[in-house]
């Protein structure tokens, strides 16, 4: 349709955000809705016109930017980034709707922050130039920092500082790695390039790869977040306003997973193979350890935050299980290995999309309750289903999705990753599958304490059921969760070529 679909998806929300800042509070909501819906609509052709037969970058835009260093304004998407972009534009619409009546303090700035962040996040997913990527990557922190810092809870200063330092420290080494890679691309300034695709082709020694891998790992592990660099997330979530939590959980965590796919795996495949045990170990720790920690949380947001970490464990597990499969002598033949490995990587991607919907929905549910009673303590609730039956219906649905019930999106990715990891080692699958019990335990135990039973106190008795706006936004997510659950094929279809290409690439040693 347009030559510059990606640019439009990045800049329309950014410009929209700036316009809202200028226009002020009065029409900020309507304008924000307009711009977010427009961005979503513009992002749809990325999906519908996507050619799933090729692993090459599509919707490419490339213009010189800084000639001296061969930096380009270079955008493009493949099967990995495209679904995440559409997820971003979709979730932003939801966030705008969720803030409609709730944010009374400086609504224009709130909306603007989210729209600008939307553009930046799309930029992260579509940048093919390392400098451009890094700028978007760091820029993303600013609106989120502001959102938590201005509209956040009482302990927001500690949370923002922790959030900022964690993520910032994580990415400094990444910058070093990117510059190192740039220097390796050629001997003269004219021959060098910041193109990520050129980085993929670099022949690096194992030692080089391991250093670069570790530098990337720190950056991405903080974002995902992986144990033990995860403790910023519960604090950030607890202090963030609902919309902030939704974007944080639904999109920002995915940027870590995406980073592994775009950088770590293709640039340092041999280091990934050497260190796959480390990532797999940390992923399984996330599933089991964090799952148990989630069980004892008293604050709903903390519980869901921990649950997010546990679910993201499946993403990192699925991505790195490929290497364990490659080195498993039990599986005969390259083609069989490729197929089981593909299952893991595609499972990880599906899990990212699904977790975007489910964690977003869960945080919105908590937000709905918080807007009414201004507490997130589980013990402050009880018997909510008596007074809010419609809300209870949605919350049970999302809880079931969070517990990985088949028919919801939550099941698909976990199932694929578990099957894939079974091929690598039965005990990986065994530990990963404990989520069936632990995940159900913490989610449904919360549901029981919040929704079920007699009306617990007078505050709960006064609760009003969700209104049309809240119904609409939860229904949109419910449809998404169920649709991906019963018909995940559209997501995996766009992945096949990219995954195969990636597997071909990482199966061959680079040096």
């Amino acid at each position, binding site marked *: 349709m347009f030559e510059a679909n990606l640019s439009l998806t990045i800049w329309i929300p950014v410009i929209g955000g700036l316009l809202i800042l200028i226009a002020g509070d009065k029409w900020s909501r309507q304008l924000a809705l307009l711009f977010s819906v427009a961005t979503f609509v513009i992002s749809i052709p990325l999906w519908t016109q996507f050619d799933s037969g090729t692993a090459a970058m599509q919707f490419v835009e490339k213009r010189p930017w800084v000639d001296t260093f061969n930096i380009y304004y270079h955008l493009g998407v493949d099967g990995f980034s495209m679904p995440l972009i559409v997820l971003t534009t979709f979730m932003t619409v939801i966030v705008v709707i969720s803030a409609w009546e709730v944010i009374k303090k400086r609504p224009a700035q709130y909306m603007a922050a989210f729209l600008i962040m939307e553009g930046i996040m799309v930029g992260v997913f579509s940048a093919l130039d390392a400098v451009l990527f890094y700028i978007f990557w760091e820029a993303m922190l600013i609106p989120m920092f502001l959102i938590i810092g201005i509209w956040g809870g009482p302990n927001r200063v500690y949370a923002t500082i922790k959030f900022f330092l964690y993520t910032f420290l994580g990415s400094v080494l990444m910058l070093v790695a990117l510059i190192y890679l740039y220097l390796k691309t050629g001997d003269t300034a004219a021959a060098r390039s910041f193109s990520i695709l050129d980085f993929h082709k670099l022949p690096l020694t194992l030692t080089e790869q391991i250093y670069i891998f570790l530098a990337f790992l720190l950056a991405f592990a903080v974002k995902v977040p992986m144990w033990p660099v995860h403790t910023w997330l519960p604090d950030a979530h607890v202090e963030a306003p609902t919309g902030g939590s939704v974007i944080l959980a639904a999109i920002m965590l995915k940027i870590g997973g995406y980073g592994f796919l775009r950088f770590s795996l293709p640039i340092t495949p041999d280091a990934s193979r050497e260190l796959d045990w480390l990532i797999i170990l940390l992923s399984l720790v996330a599933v089991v350890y964090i799952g148990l920690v989630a069980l*004892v949380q008293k604050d709903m947001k903390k519980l869901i935050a921990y649950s997010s970490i546990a679910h993201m464990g499946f993403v990192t597990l699925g991505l790195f299980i490929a290497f364990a499969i490659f080195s498993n002598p039990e599986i005969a033949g390259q083609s069989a290995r490729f197929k089981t490995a593909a299952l893991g990587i595609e499972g990880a991607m599906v899990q990212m999309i699904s977790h975007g919907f489910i964690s977003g929905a869960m945080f919105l549910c908590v937000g709905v309750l918080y807007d009414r009673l201004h507490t997130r303590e589980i013990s402050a609730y009880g018997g909510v289903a008596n007074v809010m039956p419609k809300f209870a219906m949605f919350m049970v649905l999302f809880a079931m999705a969070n517990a990985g019930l*088949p028919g919801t999106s939550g*099941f698909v990715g976990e199932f694929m990753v578990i099957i894939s990891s079974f091929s690598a080692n*039965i005990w990986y699958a065994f530990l990963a599958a404990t989520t069936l019990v632990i995940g159900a335990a913490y989610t*449904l135990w919360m549901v029981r304490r919040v929704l079920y039973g007699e009306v617990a106190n007078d505050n709960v008795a006064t609760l009003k059921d969700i209104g049309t706006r809240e119904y609409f936004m939860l229904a949109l997510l419910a449809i998404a969760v169920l649709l991906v659950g019963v018909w995940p094929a559209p997501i995996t279809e766009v992945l096949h070529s990219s995954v195969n290409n990636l597997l071909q690439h990482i199966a061959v040693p680079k040096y």
Partner: protein
Amino acid sequence: MQSIYLGIPLAPLAGAIVAGLFGRQIGRAGAHWAAIIGVGIAFVLSLIVFKHHIIDGAPDFNGNVYTWIESGVLHLGVGFLIDPLTCIMLVVVTFVSLMVHIYTIGYMHDDPGYQRFFSYIALFTFSMLMLVMANNFMQLFFGWEAVGLVSYLLIGFWFKRPSAVYANLKAFLVNRVGDFGFLLGIAAVALYFGSLDYATVFRAAPGVASETMPIMAGVEWNVITVTCILLFIGAMGKSAQVPLHVWLPDSMEGPTPISALIHAATMVTAGIFMVARMSPLFELSSTALSVVLVIGAITALFMGFLGLVQNDIKRVVAYSTLSQLGYMTVALGASAYAAGIFHLMTHAFFKALLFLGAGSVIIAMHHEQDMRKMGGLKKYMPITYWTALIGSLALIGFPFLSGFYSKDAIIEAVHHSTIAGSTFAYWAVLLGVFITALYSFRMFFMVFHGKERMDEHTREHLRESPAVVTVPLILLAIPSAIIGFLAVEPMLFGGYFGNAIKVSEPNVLAEIGKDFHGAAAFALHGMTQPPFMLAMAGVLAAWFFTLRRPDLADAIKTRFGLIYRILLDKYGFDRFNEIVFAGGGRKIGRILWRFGDMRLIDGLIVNGSARVVGWVAGIVRHVQTGYLYHYAFMMILGLLFFMTWLIMR
């Protein structure tokens, strides 16, 4: 024909959606009609399919409807396998479901959640049908989890009751433990068979039979054995086998119609169905079969004991269900899959009947479930009485009634079986017959005979339940009485199941079949056999202790106080789980959180490094005094150092 197959699950689904989403608009009657018509259509279509395949002898159907996902090794989709095993399940499920739907109109008459209830049970029927019609493991698992979900929602239907929401969480989690094994089993199938399609997997099974998989360094286990045991763990959860049985008695917190439909007739038998479906795999591993046999035998006998000490009418029936599920599992372990499915079918009828009968009593008693407050209901509720009598006699295996044929076949099959554990299993199921008769008729006599122990107010209002309740009772009593007589020959010895069930030699049912000379002769012969004597002894003992000398029962309670307390404590399973798993999980979680996350990572590393930075900054800060001469002095000092270094190097 294909559209008929599709119509079977979709009709109840449509009913569920209409009743669920538009319940308020269409009202109570609209909701129950929507659900009943949906399930009714499914029942009629099931009969058509049954006629088409069984009576007209059409070949099995195996086809895909749509693709769910295609990724890597797996091609997953929705597909139907219609063979004799599916056909019988279809008819049983839709018939019992239809009866329960009709019954619900009477039972839930005054409940505010009427529409929601109909939506749930129609949704359940859809899920159960998808489960039995599946032609692949994936869809089986979908149905498997979906019935679990509906069970969760229905046990907690009265979500204001703490006991109900405790029970539904417990049921879901215990089932999840089973699913944990089941899912790993499916993963093993996917890896070693390269497909999740039944047909492909079963074809490949003999080739995989000798393969082993590495468990630990140097330890290799047979693939089929591991796979089958993992799958069976799933069955243990859903079909409530020891030690994953703990959820079923508590599930009685749900309304009685769903106890009949889900927790007696259909959902809990999904595990039995699944193992029978997997017979081509289980037949390749005698180890797995032994596990199945022993677990089933333990469940059959020891859960029966628990029924003896219960006073809640529904709980007695629940323990009876556990015990009967044990019988079915024993049949599977003895490779008598056909007998297991046969007992599944007869049990579905008579146990649904008994539950609905119990429900009818509960309605009359104004939701009193304690049998000690009942008695003498015979004269007030004749239809309930007579149907309950038929159900109880069928349950204890009275000759010519349905339960006799299925249970006797199981006992005979175990008797002929030679695999490890079969001797124990034989004595367990034999003794179980006596126990079954004892608790069944203890309940029967306590409820319908003897002194009227209820209060005056309740007695005045005692009357027979309305027709929507009694008609399903009568309609269920008919098959409970006669289906065994009619079906025993084709199902057990006539090759009804064809290729749906594979049994390798020695085929125990075939051996029994050599002595089979018709259903009537089988029953007459049965009257001279130990099971019949044991059953009669059980009835007699029940009569003696409940009606003739009730004081003796109390004497026994005190005499054998320890055993009585162990039985009341349900062997301590619940307490163990509560302390070790629930409590232990929380405790570990708290330690990991408090110590790992808060102390170690946040306290030591994150805030610690912040403190280190602060400390260093505090020292370095002294350098910045703000006095110009300090800075000038430093500059000169630095310049000196720099120059010295330049000169000296």
